[in-house]
Every structure is written in structure tokens, then in C-alpha cells.
């Protein structure tokens, strides 16, 4: 008989190996999936995971890697703080949208000014927009004990409706012949989040993501606030005795993650996406949840996981173009990855024992 025996402490080795095992398992299961769709599984897996970095057209794809990874990492870093403390912000998609709307709106208000102050102002407004959107579940949780999971998620739908409203109303391009969508930021250099190194896909948002990784690392290892986040997650009772203020922690975690998601949205809309439009958001807020878990809620891990997840996006697009693989298959692959990760995690927390149980 097989049974599980709880480890006194989670195994570090298993914890580190789990994401790798999960990726391998996803490749195998994904291969089977592609085979069932009538594709050669080896070609499909190679197209998704290998060709974008080492293939013939890698020079194009490599730049895209950071463009896609930037927002994922930025959002996931914020989410990981809350997840560590047992505060579940799953509405990052909404904060991403609101950050983009507020940031873009603040910039467009000054069109066609050429002041160098505009872009910093846009960045600030993006962070504030996302942060305030996340402040709603934070206040409702701390004041009224409302479940932050449900509230933050409901606010995603509200944000989507707002996006639909502003892209055909408030922020619509006055010179756009009535088409929905804002002015393109390429025509507004003072607020444009332009590439710093185009071939590598590095824009200000990518730099911000790297910055967030470093700051989160420092916060978690060197700062009392990071210690409190970790303590609350690992031993909530001890945290209370140690004088951690739960209200402050909830507000800090939610607002920080909201602000980072807002920044990601703002950088995306003023850069790669180029304009506010009904569907500029591409689900990064939800994929970032997978990134956070896959990265073990650790800043460095999230950096790697963000790059991997960006790879599946780019590889997925490539597979769509060359093999005619449906786009949904990639979404499925990403969901699968999280499943396998959660399943493999059992080995980090438990030992497998064979044979019958000895008498107690």
C-alpha cells in the first residue's frame, strides 16, 4: 500500500525540482494532446519550446520573449507577495486594465505636448490606477471581512466594461473617423514607451520588471515587511503574536500587486499594444498567476517562469502560424502546467511510503 507521510519541513530539493518535472510532464501530455489533434507531437513541442530561441527565425522571436515576459513578471512579482501571505489577489487582469486606462488617459490629456515630464507622469498614473483598483478589495476585506478572491475577480469584469466604455467614448481618437480605440502612442513620442534596445525587445516595462524582481528579493530577504509577509503565510498565529498588523499587510500586499499590474498595463498600452482598444489586454493578469506559482513565489523563480511562459506564448503563435495549431491549445497547455506543478508539489511536502503502516 502506498501512503503519504508528512515531512517535518518541505523538501528544498523537491521544491526546486517540481517546476522542471512539471514542465517535462506538460511537454509529454501536450505532445499526446497534439498527437490527438493530428499533429506530429515532436514537431509541435519543438516549434513551441525550442524554435523560438534556437530555430531559424529566432532573431525575431528572441526580441518578443522579453516583450511578453515583462508584464508577466511584473504582475507575478506583485501577486507572489500576497500569495505568500495567503492574500489572494486574482483580479490582476482588472488592475492591469485600469492601470492602462488611467496611465494612457493621463498621457493623452496632454496631447500633443512634448514635455519630458509626461512619460514619468504616465508611469505614476498607471501605478496609481492599478493600486487604487486593488485598494477596493483591500478595504472591503479589512473593513467588512469580504472575500478578496471574489471581489478582485468581479472587478475584472467591471474593468472590462470600463475599457469598452472608454475606448469608444472618453479616450477615443478624435482623429480616428469614429473608430473605437484611442490615439496611437507612436504618434505621441512624449508618452510613448519606446524600445530602448529594439532587437532585444527591451522597453521601460521590461526594465521595471527586472527592477521589481530585485526589489522583491531585497524586500523578502532583508526587510521587516518581507519577513512579516513570509511569517503570515507560514505561521499565521505566530505572526499575530509577533505583532504583525494584518490590516496593514492586506493593504500592502493588494495595493503593491495592483500597482505593479497597473504598471504592466500602462507599459503595454503605451508600448507594444500602442493604443487603448477593447481587446488590448490579452489575459496576462491570469497567466501571471501560473507564473507566480511556477516560480515558487520566489523573485528569481518568477523571472525564469515568466520567460518560460512568454516562450509558450511566442511558440504558440508560431505553432498557430506554421502548423495551424489552435490558439486555445496553448491556453490549455498553460493550465496543464499549473496542474502538474501542483501535483508534483506533493513530493515536496510528503514522503511516499510503501508497505503497510507499522503499529503506532
Amino acid at each position, binding site marked *: 500500500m502506498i501512503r503519504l507521510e508528512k515531512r517535518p519541513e518541505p523538501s528544498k530539493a523537491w521544491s526546486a525540482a517540481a517546476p522542471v518535472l512539471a514542465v517535462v510532464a506538460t511537454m509529454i501530455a501536450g505532445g499526446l494532446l497534439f498527437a490527438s489533434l493530428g499533429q506530429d507531437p515532436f514537431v509541435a513541442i519543438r516549434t513551441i519550446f525550442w524554435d523560438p530561441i534556437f530555430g531559424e527565425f529566432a532573431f525575431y522571436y528572441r526580441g518578443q520573449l522579453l516583450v511578453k515576459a515583462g508584464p508577466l513578471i511584473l504582475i507575478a512579482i506583485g501577486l507572489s507577495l500576497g500569495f505568500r501571505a495567503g492574500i489572494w489577489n486574482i483580479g490582476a487582469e482588472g488592475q492591469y486594465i485600469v492601470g492602462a486606462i488611467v496611465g494612457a488617459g493621463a498621457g493623452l490629456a496632454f496631447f500633443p505636448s512634448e514635455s519630458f515630464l509626461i512619460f514619468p507622469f504616465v508611469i505614476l498614473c498607471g501605478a496609481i490606477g492599478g493600486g487604487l483598483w486593488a485598494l477596493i478589495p483591500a478595504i472591503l476585506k479589512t473593513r467588512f471581512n469580504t472575500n478578496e478572491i471574489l471581489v478582485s475577480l468581479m472587478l475584472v469584469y467591471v474593468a472590462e466594461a470600463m475599457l469598452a466604455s472608454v475606448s469608444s467614448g472618453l479616450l477615443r481618437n478624435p482623429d480616428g473617423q469614429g473608430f473605437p480605440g484611442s490615439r496611437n502612442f507612436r504618434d505621441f513620442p512624449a508618452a510613448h514607451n519606446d524600445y530602448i534596445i529594439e532587437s532585444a525587445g527591451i522597453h521601460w516595462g521590461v526594465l521595471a520588471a527586472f527592477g521589481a524582481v530585485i526589489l522583491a528579493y531585497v524586500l523578502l530577504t532583508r526587510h521587516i515587511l518581507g519577513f512579516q509577509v513570509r511569517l503570515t503565510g507560514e505561521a499565521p498565529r505566530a505572526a499575530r503574536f509577533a505583532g504583525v498588523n494584518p490590516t496593514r499587510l492586506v493593504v500592502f500586499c493588494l495595493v503593491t500587486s495592483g500597482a505593479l499590474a497597473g504598471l504592466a498595463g500602462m507599459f503595454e498600452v503605451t508600448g507594444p499594444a500602442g493604443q487603448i482598444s477593447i481587446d488590448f489586454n490579452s489575459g496576462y493578469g491570469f497567466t501571471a498567476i501560473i507564473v507566480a506559482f511556477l516560480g515558487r513565489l520566489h523573485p528569481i523563480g518568477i523571472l525564469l517562469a515568466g520567460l518560460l511562459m512568454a516562450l509558450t506564448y511566442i511558440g504558440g503563435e508560431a505553432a498557430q502560424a506554421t502548423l495551424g495549431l489552435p490558439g486555445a491549445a496553448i491556453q490549455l497547455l498553460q493550465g496543464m502546467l499549473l*496542474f502538474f506543478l501542483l501535483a508534483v508539489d506533493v513530493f515536496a511536502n510528503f514522503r511516499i511510503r510503501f508497505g503497510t503502516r507499522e503499529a503506532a
Partner: protein
Amino acid sequence: MGAIDPLVLLASLMVASTPILLAAIGEMVVEKAGVLNLGVEGMMITGAVCGFVIAVNTGSPTIGFVAAAAGGAGLSVLFALLTQYLLSNQVATGLALTLFGLGLSALIGQGYVGIKAPATGDLPIPLLADIPILGRILFQHDLMVYLSIALIAGVWATLKYTRFGLILRAVGENHDAAHALGYKVVHIRFLAILFGGACAGLGGAYISLIRVPQWTEGMTAGAGWIALAIVVFASWKPWRVLIGAYLFGGITVLQLNLQAAGLKIPVEYLSMSPYLITILVLVIISADRSRAALNAPASLGRSFHTSH
């Protein structure tokens, strides 16, 4: 405002509420057993696509609904295996289930966009349907509407009067005590999760087969999350789930009718209203800390492991 017929409004209220009602009653049973499954949205959309595909291919909505229940339950098996046997975090696993379900349904349904579902006939209840006004509001619906209400009554009676209901609640309130009494905690939770999955699948299929009736990607649009909110609103009581779902359905129908009536409020603000009202209701219900804590199953969301 003159364009809105209150009679039609009330009659369509029950149709609009049924998907959430089905999903919410299933989730309520799951939570009563002490498991928090946040994957309702994923199971609903999977049920929606399974039901639609099978109904289109067989031409029978009934077989479609059976397939939807099977699809939802099938997806919930993944959740049950992970959380009950591999003891994974329920919040994370539920989220994974939703993300996975959204992808899976999009993949299955890609060839079915723009097709119409075979029609499900209304089943007016003889005599009762002929009552003026009331008959039209209450007794001229399709079978699933009546079934969903019967399901509420069934769940209520099972939880309140049967031995199995008592065991299920014991497992949810204190799994260690239930285990000590010799009940198979994991098996009972597994069954509850399956039931929740089947209900969510039915709810999803109701959207794709009757309410809309078409298939589009992501068509459940947060209904699963609203069902989760309704369970909290209902304080884990079956009849209150009914009230909550109908209240919510009423708001949805009203805002749709206001949109159609060409009210001065922009469409976008009307369409965000159901979500805002859900938040408002959650706030009101949760504000009373002592009551909210009293009604929630005590073991909700905690993993059960025997050897300690």
C-alpha cells in the same frame, strides 16, 4: 421604460437564474463537505461546450445535458484527485481548474462557433400553466428550470433529514472527528466534488443550449464566480441559494431589458451592474463577522491527512 413588459421580465428571470442556481447548489454541497472548489467557472464552461457539442451532434438537448454533467464531473475529478489524494492547495488548484477549463473548452468548441443548438421545448405544467399571470411566470418553462428547483429541494432534504446528509456535514465541520467516527472523509469529499462538478456542468450547458443558445469562447462570463459569491450570500443554506440566484437573475434580466429599452445609461455601465451588485451583496453579508463565521463549514478549505 414603457417597452418593458413586467410579465416577460419575471418569466425570463427564472431562465436567467437557472445556470447560476445549478452551479451554486452544487458548489454549496462541495463547501458543506469542507472543500472550497474555485474551479466552478472552468467546470461550467466545460459543461457548456460538452453539452453543446453533443447536443448538436446527436440532435438531442437531453443527451447534451447528460454529457454536460459528465463533462463537468470529469473535470472535477482532476480537482478531487489533486486536493484529496495529493493534498494540493485548494485555492491554487481551483484557479488552475478554471484556467484549464477555459482553454479546454475553447479547444473543443473551435469548430462549433456560429452553429445554433437544437431547440429545447418548453414543458408547461398541465392546469397550473393555465393560471392567468402566475402560470406564465412560473409554470411555462423548460424541464431544467423545474429540475433545478427540485435539486434545491432535494439537497435541502438530504442535508437536513438523511443520514448521508448528516455525515457530509460532519465531514465539513470537523474532518478529524468524522474520521475518528469511522467515516471515509476523502471518499465523501470526492463524491461531493463530483456532484458539484456535474451541477456546474449542467449550469454551463443551460447557458449554451437554452439561454443563448450558441457556443462562444468564454461565454459563461464569470457566472461560475458569481455562483461562488451566491453560496456565501446564502450562508450555505439551500433555499437561500435559490433566493440569491433569482435575485441575481432578476438584476441581469432587468439590466438587459434596460439596455434593449434604450435607456440613457450607457450599455457598459449596465453590463457591469451585476458584478457591482454581487460585490455589494458580499459586503453586506460579510460585514456581520460573527454570523458569517458561524455559518461557514468549519473545515472549509483545509486539507485532510490521516497520519498525524
